[in-house]
């Protein structure tokens, strides 16, 4: 697969195409009394791949879901290509058409074949003819290595194949930014690589991406920036290799040690009820 085959980035049609694609300003979000996002600020430049890491429950999924307007925010604002999307009177469905999202559980529609999963929204929302849509869908399935599987139903595909179809499905809408929420976490280890390779190639086409992941090698090699989230806040941000090799915040250091990303031998670690002993 080459970069040009995957090229799908539409012209940014925001107020200022040269500015950041996503801008998150002081976003706060609670579920009941549980404060999940506690003043998050974030800027993602066009063409950047931003990697988000952090403990389970630190608010990573919620942040992505807020950017795609799947969750309302309590405070702050989010801008997409310069347009405020969290204000009143925003056409939510239209915003989501500019934002592609891929989920941990794939969420392919079980009653549709791979190609129908990919074409459905393009036919119904972008009003492409079936022929046009299928031609484009086959190109996309080819770039994710699945042109042979176009007529299969999701349950006939491996997790890695399902996830690649899900990526093609999101790309079919020609989004201006892609959100990936732990898209390899539900996969058997031997299937993780095929999905990460598709994401790497997509990043190389210049797609703007926000990637929540535990794959540190991917973060290091593909990410342009990396943020570490803890308890609803971004506590550290920088070039991935710098953050991973020289975390400046103690919480980042502890997280990386627990996920065995720091060069310490397993020999030296012990476990208590909290997990890895500090």
């Amino acid at each position, binding site marked *: 697969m080459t970069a040009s085959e995957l090229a799908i980035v539409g012209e940014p049609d925001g107020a200022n195409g040269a500015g950041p694609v996503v801008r998150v300003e002081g976003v706060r979000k609670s579920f009941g009394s549980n404060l999940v996002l506690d003043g998050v600020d974030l800027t993602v430049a066009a063409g950047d791949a931003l990697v988000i890491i952090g403990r389970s429950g630190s608010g990573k999924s919620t942040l992505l879901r807020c950017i795609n307007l*799947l969750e309302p925010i309590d405070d702050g604002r989010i801008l997409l290509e310069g347009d405020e999307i969290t204000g009143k009177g925003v056409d939510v469905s239209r915003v*989501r058409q500019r934002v*592609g999202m891929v989920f941990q559980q794939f*969420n392919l529609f079980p009653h549709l074949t791979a190609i129908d999963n990919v074409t459905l929204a393009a036919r119904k929302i972008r009003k492409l003819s079936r022929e046009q849509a299928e031609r484009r869908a086959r190109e996309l399935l080819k770039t994710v290595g699945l042109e042979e599987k176009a007529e299969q139903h999701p349950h*006939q595909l491996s997790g890695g194949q399902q996830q690649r179809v899900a990526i093609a499905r999101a790309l079919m809408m020609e989004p201006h930014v892609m959100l990936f929420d732990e898209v390899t976490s539900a996969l058997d280890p031997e299937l993780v690589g095929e999905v990460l390779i598709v994401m790497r190639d997509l990043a190389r086409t210049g797609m703007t991406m926000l990637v929540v992941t535990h794959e540190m090698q991917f973060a290091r090699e593909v990410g342009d920036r990396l943020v570490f989230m803890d308890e609803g806040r971004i506590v550290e941000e920088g070039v991935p290799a710098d953050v991973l090799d020289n975390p400046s915040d103690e919480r980042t250091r502890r997280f990386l040690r627990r996920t065995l990303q720091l060069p310490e031998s397993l020999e030296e670690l012990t476990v208590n009820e909290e997990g890895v002993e500090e």
Partner: protein
Amino acid sequence: MILATYDLWAFVSDNQEELLDGLLNTLKVSAFAIAGAFVIGLVLGAARAHRIPVVSQLTAIYVEVIRNTPILVQIFFIFYALPQLGIVFDQFTVAWLSVMIWGGAFNSENFRAGFQAVAYRYREAGYALGFAPFSTFLNVTLPIGGRIALPSSINTYISVLKNTSLMYVIGYAELTTTSLNISNLTLQTTESLTMLAVVYLTLVWSLSALIRLLESRLALPESR
């Protein structure tokens, strides 16, 4: 002796025109009622699954009333009580209306359960692609939940068909009424009942076969 003269074929051939009319009436009433029960079930089931205010509560009351009263009382209510309030229907209308109302209540429960069984993550995938809420219902919840609801709604349609025989109580000339009215005069009760059993079995089996064919084409692929 009645038994000595048992002759099913004579009963059918002597009365074939009347019986055929009765059969056609049964089919007509069933078709109207099943089509209506399908639409009612779909719409009200969707309203309940999505907790649409007012409609949802009214549907709950409708379902409770229909499920917890005998269908005979419902038929009599429409046939005898409504005219007292100035609402008069002909027998044919009472026939399909009463079984449609009965089937619609059960079917709205079938569809409600089907739609509620659609995991939220599928709807969320629809929203994330840019489908508006109603389009998400049409393109995601309906095709997935409708397939889940199919087997139980088939059972409701079969019950609707069999319940058309209750129109005997209002004297509407569907198959059961026609056949029993003839045998009341000719004393061919056994022939009459045998014929009814055979015809209803055939109708129900045909209906099931038809719908099972539909089901096998529609069923969610993993359960095929």
